[in-house]
Each structure stands twice: as C-alpha cells, then as structure tokens.
C-alpha cells in the first residue's frame, strides 16, 4: 500500500463512518431527554460534533491523498506468504473468540494454558517443549499472584478447582 492509497482508504473510511454515525448510529443509540433546554447541553451534541470533525478529517485525508504522488514506496513490508499470514490472523481471531467462550466454563487457568499452547504453535515456536512447560507454569504463577496476593476472584470453571 502506498502513502496515497493509504490516505485515500482512511479518508473514505472516515467519511463513511461519519455518515453512518450522523444518519443512523447517533439517532438510534444515543438517547436524549425531550426537555433539554439548549442544544449544547444535549447528550447528542458531543457525538454529533465529533462526527462532524471526523467528516472534516476524512475530507482532509482525501484531499491530501489527491495531492500525493501516485507512485512512491510501499509503506508495509509485504508478507512472504500472504495466504498463510491471513490464515494465521483468522486463526488468532478464532482463538480469541473461543477464549471468550471457554473462560467462564473451563476457568481462567485451563483456558490460558490452552491459549498459550495454541498461540505458541500459531507463531511456529522453535522451542515446543519450553512452550509446553511455560504454558503450564505461567498461568499457575499468575493465578497464585492474582488469587492469593491481589485477592482477585479468578474464574475457576466447572472442571478444575484450584486452592
């Protein structure tokens, strides 16, 4: 992605997001009492003002993109294996989603152990044994600190009850 295309995408994105806020999101998801005396005191005023500034910034980015040289160097180093990189990103997103589901069921310690192992293998660790040992030790040490020193009620889950 060149600087020009990046500015262009950001500008368009900001304009679309701003329009979405003004047309749909703010009227639908921000409530205001009917008896507000002055517009500047309304709960709607600040979000509308920010959405307006967002539109201005988007327009500025588009203008800057149009004035930027169409050529230019790529801003991000291209990945050697883009398909695999996107698959890994997708897998990471799935892992995060699964973590949210498992946290209340398996508890924080077991879920963290599984997440540690999965992430270590996702980033293709060259130290699988060390990764497995750390996957067990680190969540346990953190549990000991947060549960017994900081007094945090760390979720225990349905299968494993730690002291």
């Amino acid at each position, binding site marked *: 992605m060149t600087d020009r295309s990046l500015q262009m995408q950001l500008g368009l994105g900001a304009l679309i997001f701003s329009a979405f806020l003004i047309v749909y999101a703010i009227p639908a998801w921000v409530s205001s009492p009917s008896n507000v005396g002055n517009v*500047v005191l309304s709960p709607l005023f600040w979000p509308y003002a920010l959405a307006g500034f967002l539109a201005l910034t988007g327009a500025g980015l588009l203008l800057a993109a149009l004035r930027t040289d169409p050529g230019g160097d790529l801003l991000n180093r291209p990945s050697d294996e883009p398909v695999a990189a996107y698959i890994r990103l997708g897998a990471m997103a799935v892992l995060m989603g699964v973590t949210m589901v498992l946290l209340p069921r398996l508890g924080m310690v077991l879920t963290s152990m599984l997440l540690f192992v999965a992430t270590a293998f996702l980033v293709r660790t060259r130290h699988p044994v060390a990764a497995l040992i750390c996957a067990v030790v680190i969540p346990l040490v953190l549990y000991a600190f947060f549960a017994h020193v900081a007094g945090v009620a760390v979720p225990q889950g349905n299968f494993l009850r730690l002291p």
Partner: protein
Amino acid sequence: MSFLDSLAAGLSLVGNVESFLALFVGVVIGVIGGAIPGMSATMAVALTLPFTFALQPITGILLLLGVYKGGIFGGSIPAILIKTPGTPASSATILDGYPMAERGEAGRALGMALWASCTADLISNLSLILFAGWLASFALSFGPPEFFTLILFSLTIIAGVSGDSLLRGALSALLGLLLATVGLDLVYGTNRFTFGDPNMMGGLNFIAVLIGLFAIPEIIAMVWSPTAHVGTARSLGKNWVSFADYRKSFKSIVRGSFIGVFLGSIPGIGAAPSAFLSYSEARRTSKNRENFGRGEIEGVAASEAGNNGVAGATLIPLLALGVPGDVITAIIIGAFMIHGLQPGPMMFILNVDIIYGLFIGLIVSSVFLFFVGTLAIKGFKFVADVPKRILIPAVLVLCIYGVFAVNNNIFDVGVMFAMGWVGFAMLRFHVPAAPFLIAFILGPLLEDNFRQSMLMSGSDPAILFRGPITWFFWTVTAITIFAIARAGVRAMRTGGTIVR
C-alpha cells in the same frame, strides 16, 4: 504546610523497604522491558499496571515510575548493540551508537548512554520538583473554561506531533474521543452507545482499552509475521566510558537535559523529538561535528540526555494539571485513578505526602537506574536470547489476567481483544495509537468541562474566552494548529509525507 513539613510527610510515606523495593524492581522490569526488541517502555508499564492493584497507592505508582525510567534507558541497549531501538525515543541513539558498536566500542557507547541518562534523569526530576508545585498553585485558580481550553490545547498538540501525519493523528484522537462517549451521559444519565448492556454503562474500561491498543497489536503482528527476525548483537568490546569522555560531553548532556525538560513539560511532545533536537543542537555546536553520524560519543550522550530529560518533566503536567504529558504518563494516570487519586492541583493540597513521596522516590530512581543499567548492559545477551515466540504467548496470558483483575469482569477481556484488532488495523494503516489513548482519557474531561462552562454561563460561549488564561490557551492552540498545518503543507509540496 511548609516545604520541610511536606518533605517529612513524603519521607514518612516512602521511608520503608517496600517502597524502595518496588522502585528497584520497577527499574529492573523497565530496563529489561525496554531492552527486549519488540517490547517497549509503554508495553512494560501497561503490563506492570495490574500488579499494582494489590499494593499501596504510593508503592504501586513508584513501581510504575521505576518501569518508566528504566524502560527509557533500556531502549538504548538494543539501539546500540543491534541497531533496533527498544523504544521510539532511542532512535536518535542509533545514529552514533551503532557506528561505535561496529568499531568495537559498544561498551563505551552504552556506558556514556547510562551516564548521560542518569544525569538527565536527575536534572529532569529536580525540574519536576521545582516547577510542578508552582504550576499547581497557579492552576488552583482554573475553572471549567480554563480546563476546557487547556485540554483542547493538549489534544491539538498530541494529535499534531504523535505520528507521520497531522491528519492521521487527528483521526486517531477523534476516534478516541468518540469511544470515550460510550456509557451514561455525564449530565442527564441517558444511554450513549451502550446497546442496553450494563457492562457498557460505566464506559469502556481504561485498562482494557490501553492494553488492547498497546500490547495485543504486537501479538497479532507476531502472528502475521512470525519470522520477523532481530539483528545480531555486537560484543561490548574492551573500552569503557571514561570520566574524560563524560567531561567532554557534559555541556551537551546538560543542554540535552534542559531540552528534554522543556519539551517534556509540554503535553504530547514526548521523548523522540527531544532526543533528535538535543542531538542536532549538539552537532551544531560541537567541535567534532564532522564525526557526528560516524560514531561520536558526544552524539550518544546528547540523544540519551534528550530522551531521559523528558522522563521527569512529563510528570509536571500530570501532577500539576492532571493532563498526561505522553502515553506512558497516560497509563500512570490510570494507576492514580485505580487507587482513588485524581492528579491535578488539588492533589498538592489533599495528598501532599504522596506528591513528596513520589519526588523522593524519583530522585532515588536515578541512583537505582545507574546500578541496574550497569548490570543490564553486561547481561543484555541473556535478554536478547529470550525466545520471542514464547514471550508473546506469555504476554497474551498476562494481558488476560491483568485486564480481568481490574473489575473481575470477563467482558473487559473481550473489550481488550476487540481493541487489539483496532490497534492492529491502526498499525497497518500507520495511524498513531498514542493520540487515541490520550483522547480517550481526556475526552470525558473535555466534555465535562465544556458542559459545566455552558451550565455556568447559561449556554453563552463567551465564557470560554473569559480571562487571560483562556485567551493564552486559545492563542497557543491556534499557533500550534497553524505551525503543524504549515509544516504539513510544506512537506506535501516537497513530495514527502506530512512530517511532525
């Protein structure tokens, strides 16, 4: 309360093993965190924050300040040894540090970096002690209109200087301000973007947003490119810095320290511009200017003095006005809030013992930094050898525990993950994350002060121009916008990106 009484109150608060141990451990964590390429002082402070929940307020804040101080110096170690700055602030150190390492003088360069850092740190801390109280007593007369204009000025400068492009900085700040509107309205108590979820009625958790923005994107970036390798570390060599080297560079160190103090006390500018300005001033005035860029020890001293001079000074606006000076002090403000403290002028009246306790701790931190830094230089090899592909999952697990611990709420973990993807997208689109976070913190303050002003005046906007202080802030805001916009237009005409 006299100065001596305040000092005694501070000493009674921090005069125990626990406080100094926390400070020492903080410096160690900071130096290691700053020295690991791919981590940063910001990430180290963010990850240490959850561990302060169990500590006394002063002990926890000293721990974080130790991490901050250590992290800024720690970044110079990989900058010199492997040409990879551990923190953005150490970028200028590469210019002369790495050529020295190539010549087999890495030990000498690192020694000078340490001596310059400790000197600048001390000067910066003394400046904080001198100016913060004075500024706070001045700020006591501020009302909502004055605070509104001050915060507006801070946001303008932060958005303008935090990245390659003014517009991208502004976009980032606006998104942060928008995210800060989530929750119940400050005046009427009505819902704003809460979707009826009670978890969102108090607004999004600051720690979840912070760790999501600064730690999770690094993990996702590692998943995107697991083989992004780190350079080979140079050996330290046999030469070590001498007192003659220090004396020769002393003028540049002191000048760089004051540049750091000046720029650090202005919210938003941060350490990297200060290091470059200090470096260019040293090169302009040095007798050895032709050696700069080829391994001149004075260049290392100047850039390190510039970036460490900022470290104490960024606490001036934080403690005196309640406005974070940079992204790390924005995290530290979170620590204050978690412990029920509100930094700002009133803290100099209500919590003077904590203020003076922090001052004492900061002075001691310079001494700790000297000893820890000396050991860290020699032990860097072990830090560089930590397998990053094991470190990253460990950081992920630590983030989950830390974020959950704030409110005992799994929802916050989800917010952290979501913000992690936002942060990764910002990373790929070169949108700086610092203005987002600072705007997220300052957003409610900005809106609150604006609406209070309007309530006070019966919605008459003239109140925002009511006296010399508001006029001063409007003027500097206008000058800042004009200067940044002019620099942007010039850069665009010359074909470059809109630079800081």
